[in-house]
């Protein structure tokens, strides 16, 4: 097929180069400068897809973002992209596209049958059909899902790279059409730093598809001159192919730049797309307007197009999408399309205009247009409407009829006109989407027949988004917005008075309004626009051929009427019931028609009915772009200890603990997790083990009031701790629940080292800072996180003293000189260290703290010195088993924020004699926290010693009984204990401390009821003799 609809000359395309592309298995050609849509039209391709519900053939309607039909899937494999608008896809050599609606295929024939059953698929079809019978949805779901898809997401990883870029600018201008460019020019002259965005490949917007003049100069000359000025300024950044898709609080705007999508499916260099994160002092929305298509019978036939789109295809792409045109227009402005069509050497059959024949010509009509139309014998049928399109898979003609003055009834005889393109326009709708993202409510202007954006002091609007339709007036409005924005940026606000200033600024500087803008120009008054949304048909709406409102979701005028009959009144409800505006286009083409039809059906005004709220994203955004580089290894920071390489070399298996990667266990050849943990546990109990505990949080607490501070914030007393001694300590939240725990060591008179759990380190530091800064600013205390500065190496087990004695020459290690719960400073393998005699295993233990950079030296020295004792490195799993044998709680595993120290059976941790009421103390006396039947932490021993309880398993009183049964509690920790030769578990049981020796049952999902004896939490060495040797 050759480019039958391409003009010999004109357009912004490069005819010297051919681009080959494939659409729906058809090999076609276009030129650089084409979009996929313009190239398809040039090649005479009429049908670009089938509609979502009724499978009706659909063609290209628009030339921009508002296109509802021409959705394609680009490419194949990992880089395939679904739901790309053909009007937005720039053509490149080798482009491969297919419609997203599964076409052409055998399935099409099957599904198109549905078209014949259209009346059986009313709005609410899904609700109505699938609510009954009860399991019906399961049956229908796969059919519905298969036929309803808009495109297919790739299953493979995205091969492209995406990046994010932050910007700070004085003024962000969204849209580089006439108003946006004018705003940029005036803001630039005032000295502001400007970011100017446009979604198209070239800046210019509507100017690219128009003739005429701006500021007394030809459009093209004005545009190139303006762009040269902007590009010559180092204060202006112009980003094309960049769509602002989200407008968030405090003038934060997210915009997506498509760097390489116009060159191919995968970027050959650098990032495919850039997510621009823009912090703007002021925002100017110059986002323009979308033309509306009237609602009439069969208005979705391929060949029905927006009038402005027809002009754009002719001017910008040198494509005339047909031979014979009928223009259906409700304002003089749209007549230009007929002139453009004539200038392209094609035939205009008629202009159909519903405004009464007797009405005087509107002031906006340029006489030139009328003269041209008269000279070329174009019939102008005033007081007429197009009621219906003729032809099934394409426009073959239109049926027209006279219409009453209020456009509600037909009068007189209908007749048919032949044509292959119907260009239509029923007015313009400002693109207010972004202005709604931060909650602004648009207001309906009955004179302009448009929703206008809400006013905000830090966000201005300019041009057609203000319902200013005339080109020169848009430019004037842009100049004014640029000046106003800069003036407001100049008003430096102090934080203390910001609200007041904004209010006065809003009062002082009136929002740029249409009246202001037009008054300042000498241009004629805005042309009259007919308020026509639904065109009457000789049949009632319910029986007329389909009159489409939303093309993408096949929502018809009849569907909206039906929704009202069924009692829906709110536009938000009707939207959800009919799916109006639910497609990827978010109803850009059909929304206002939908609102107008609903208003009419409800007997309300459009202002009363209101519009649905627009929310981000304005256009679909690839997940890859939102993720940026925060994928794979960069998704979340990964923290490793200074000994990580050693663990890797030893073949350790790792687990994630918060952001930390910790050795889980160290399997020897052929060992399973259980095998390795069994060996590691027994090594610690019988010989000596080695643990990397560097992830423990460490906070250095210094200052004359350090002791007083710790007394206040911890549950127990620490000011009376001797220098060189350690104490276990606990933190509660103000509600009395356990927050964190650790060991506090006194380093000096005014200095302590507080350790925290691995996961709680950051939160504990923030907690301490909160109290210091907000409640006790008088305390002279300074907190420093030293978690990463110190590595912690645990040597534990009966042989640990002998291992350490080979490495410590300057520290006496015997029990009397270095007792349990003390610390000493000395050297280990020649490295200065703080050695602490604390134990999380219940065995004789030494925790060696050394500077992180010397950790490996010390660790390897311990490992070497321990060889004679078969020293065994162990991981977090063994650590958990060993502490569970001793009944040591792990905050965050055994507790969940609803557990008090009393519940844990640890009342001794609460010092009630301290003068200060530490956080949480008062709450422990609340009626709920002090009641005796709370769930309490106990040991759990299965009657069958080989049976291991599932962690999280629910505990109940009886082995049988139909659910629901009363839950007594649940299992928090469960292990196989090698030293005890049986399973052990910990968990919560209602009034558990009073139920020792009783039997409860763990009911599992597969119906088992495991008998369990409630036991003390300490399973091994209850007297604590082994650690105190």
């Amino acid at each position, binding site marked *: 097929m050759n480019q039958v609809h391409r003009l010999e000359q004109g357009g912004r395309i490069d005819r010297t180069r051919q681009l080959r592309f494939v659409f729906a298995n058809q090999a076609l050609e276009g030129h650089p400068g084409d979009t996929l849509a313009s190239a398809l039209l040039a090649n005479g391709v009429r049908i670009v897809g089938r509609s979502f519900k009724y499978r009706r053939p659909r063609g290209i309607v628009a030339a921009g973002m508002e296109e509802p039909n021409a959705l394609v899937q680009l490419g194949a494999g990992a880089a395939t992209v679904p739901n790309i608008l053909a009007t937005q896809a720039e053509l490149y050599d080798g482009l491969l596209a297919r419609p997203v609606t599964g076409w052409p295929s055998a399935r099409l024939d099957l599904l198109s049958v549905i078209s014949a059953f259209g009346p059986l698929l009313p709005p609410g079809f899904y609700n109505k059909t699938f609510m009954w019978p009860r399991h019906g949805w399961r049956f229908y779901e796969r059919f519905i899902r298969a036929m309803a898809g808009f495109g297919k997401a790739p299953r493979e990883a995205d091969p492209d790279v995406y990046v994010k870029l932050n910007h700070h600018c004085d003024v962000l201008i969204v849209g580089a059409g006439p108003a946006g460019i004018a705003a940029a020019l005036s803001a630039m002259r005032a000295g502001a730093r400007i970011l100017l965005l446009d979604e198209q490949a070239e800046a210019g917007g509507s100017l690219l598809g128009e003739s005429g003049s701006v500021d007394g100069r030809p459009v093209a000359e004005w545009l190139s001159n303006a762009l040269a000025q902007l590009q010559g300024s180092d204060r202006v950044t112009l980003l094309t192919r960049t769509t602002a898709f989200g407008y968030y*609080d405090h003038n934060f705007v997210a915009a997506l730049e498509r760097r390489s999508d116009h060159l191919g499916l995968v970027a050959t260099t650098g990032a495919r797309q850039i997510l621009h*994160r823009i*912090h703007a002092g002021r925002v100017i929305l110059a986002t323009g307007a979308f033309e509306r298509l009237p609602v009439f019978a069969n208005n979705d036939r391929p060949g029905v197009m927006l009038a402005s789109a027809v002009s754009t295809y002719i001017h910008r792409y040198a494509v005339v999408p047909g031979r014979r045109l009928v223009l259906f227009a409700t304002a003089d402005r749209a007549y230009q399309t007929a002139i453009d069509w004539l200038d392209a050497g094609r035939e205009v059959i008629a202009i159909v205009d519903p405004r009464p024949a007797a009405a005087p010509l509107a002031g906006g009509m340029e006489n030139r247009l009328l003269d041209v139309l008269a000279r070329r014998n174009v019939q102008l049928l005033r007081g007429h409407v197009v009621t219906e399109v003729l032809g099934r898979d394409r426009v073959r003609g239109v049926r027209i009829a006279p219409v009453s003055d209020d456009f509600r009834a037909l009068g007189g005889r209908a007749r048919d006109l032949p044509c292959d393109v119907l260009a239509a326009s029923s007015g313009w709708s400002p693109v207010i989407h972004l202005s709604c993202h931060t909650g602004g409510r648009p207001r309906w202007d009955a004179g302009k027949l448009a929703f206008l954006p809400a006013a905000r002091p830090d966000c201005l609007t300019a041009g057609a988004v203000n319902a200013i339709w005339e080109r020169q007036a848009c430019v004037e409005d842009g100049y004014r917005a640029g000046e106003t924005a800069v003036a407001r940026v100049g008003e430096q606000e102090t934080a203390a008075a910001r*609200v007041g200033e904004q209010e006065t600024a809003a009062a002082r500087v009136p929002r740029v309004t249409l009246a202001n803008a037009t008054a300042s120009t000498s241009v004629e008054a805005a042309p009259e626009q007919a308020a026509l949304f639904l065109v009457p048909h000789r049949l009632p709406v319910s029986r007329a051929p389909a009159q489409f409102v939303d093309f993408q979701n096949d929502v018809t005028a009849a569907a909206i009427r039906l929704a009202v009959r069924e009692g829906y009144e709110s536009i938000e409800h009707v939207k959800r019931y009919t799916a109006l505006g639910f497609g990827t286009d978010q109803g850009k083409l059909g929304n206002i028609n939908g609102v107008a039809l609903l208003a009419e059906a409800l007997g309300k005004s459009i202002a009363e009915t209101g519009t649905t709220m627009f929310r981000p994203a304005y256009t679909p955004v690839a997940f890859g772009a939102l993720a940026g580089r925060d994928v794979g290894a960069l998704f979340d920071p990964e923290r490793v200890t200074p000994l990580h390489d050693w663990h890797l070399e030893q073949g350790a298996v790792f687990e994630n603990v918060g952001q930390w990667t910790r050795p889980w266990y160290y399997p020897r050849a052929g060992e399973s997790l259980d095998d390795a943990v069994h060996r590691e546990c027994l090594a610690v109990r019988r010989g000596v083990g080695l643990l990397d505990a560097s992830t423990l949080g460490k906070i250095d607490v210094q200052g004359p009031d350090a002791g007083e501070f710790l007394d206040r914030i911890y549950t127990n007393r620490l000011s009376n701790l001797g220098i060189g001694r350690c104490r276990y300590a606990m933190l509660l939240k103000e509600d009395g629940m356990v927050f964190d725990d650790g060991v506090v060591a006194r380093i000096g008179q005014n200095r302590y080292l507080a350790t925290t759990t691995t996961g709680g380190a950051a939160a504990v530091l923030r907690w301490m800072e*909160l109290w210091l*800064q907000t409640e006790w600013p008088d305390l002279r205390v300074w907190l420093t996180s030293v978690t990463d500065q110190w590595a912690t190496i645990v040597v534990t087990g009966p042989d640990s003293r002998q291992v350490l004695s080979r490495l410590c020459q300057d520290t006496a290690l015997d029990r009397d000189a270095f007792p349990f719960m003390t610390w000493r400073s000395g050297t280990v393998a020649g490295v200065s260290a703080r050695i602490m005699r604390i134990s999380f295993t219940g065995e004789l233990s030494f925790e060696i703290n050394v500077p992180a950079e010397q950790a490996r030296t010390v660790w390897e020295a311990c490992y070497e010195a321990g060889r004679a004792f078969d020293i065994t490195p162990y991981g977090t799993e063994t650590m958990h088993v060993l502490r569970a044998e001793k009944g040591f709680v792990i905050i965050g595993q055994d507790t969940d924020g609803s557990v008090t120290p009393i519940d844990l059976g640890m009342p001794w941790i609460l010092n009630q004699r301290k003068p200060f009421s530490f956080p949480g103390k008062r709450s422990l*006396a609340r009626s709920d926290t002090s009641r005796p039947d709370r769930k309490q932490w106990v040991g759990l021993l299965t009657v069958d010693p080989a049976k291991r309880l599932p962690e999280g398993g629910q505990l109940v009183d009886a082995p049988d009984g139909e659910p629901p049964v009363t839950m007594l509690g649940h299992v928090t920790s469960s292990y196989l204990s090698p030293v005890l030769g049986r399973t052990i578990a910990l968990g919560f049981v209602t009034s558990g401390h009073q139920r020792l020796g009783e039997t409860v049952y763990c009911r599992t999902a597969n119906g088992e009821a495991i008998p369990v004896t409630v036991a003390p939490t300490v399973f091994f060495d209850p007297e604590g003799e082994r650690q105190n040797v």
Partner: protein
Amino acid sequence: MLRIHCPYCCEDRAEEEFVYAGEAGITRPLAPEQLDDAAWGDYLFFRTNPRGAHQEMWFHASGCRRYFKVLRDTVTYALAASCRMDESLPLPAVDVLP
């Protein structure tokens, strides 16, 4: 994305640097043990949750690590003022609701 003025850094910074820390001006009772459960519960659990001007605390976690006070409108998200903990927020002179 809020831009928050830190009164210690004396700059507007991105929301990502901060952590919200609850309503400001919640005074901890000096003698908790002397309160009954209702009074203690009021301090512990009840917050004003206004529609409009809200005094709140923020923490400059990835900055100076200072807590400070902010006057934020819960409808418009406008930040009217921020100040140090030992200073007072200006009460909104007018109803800032739209």
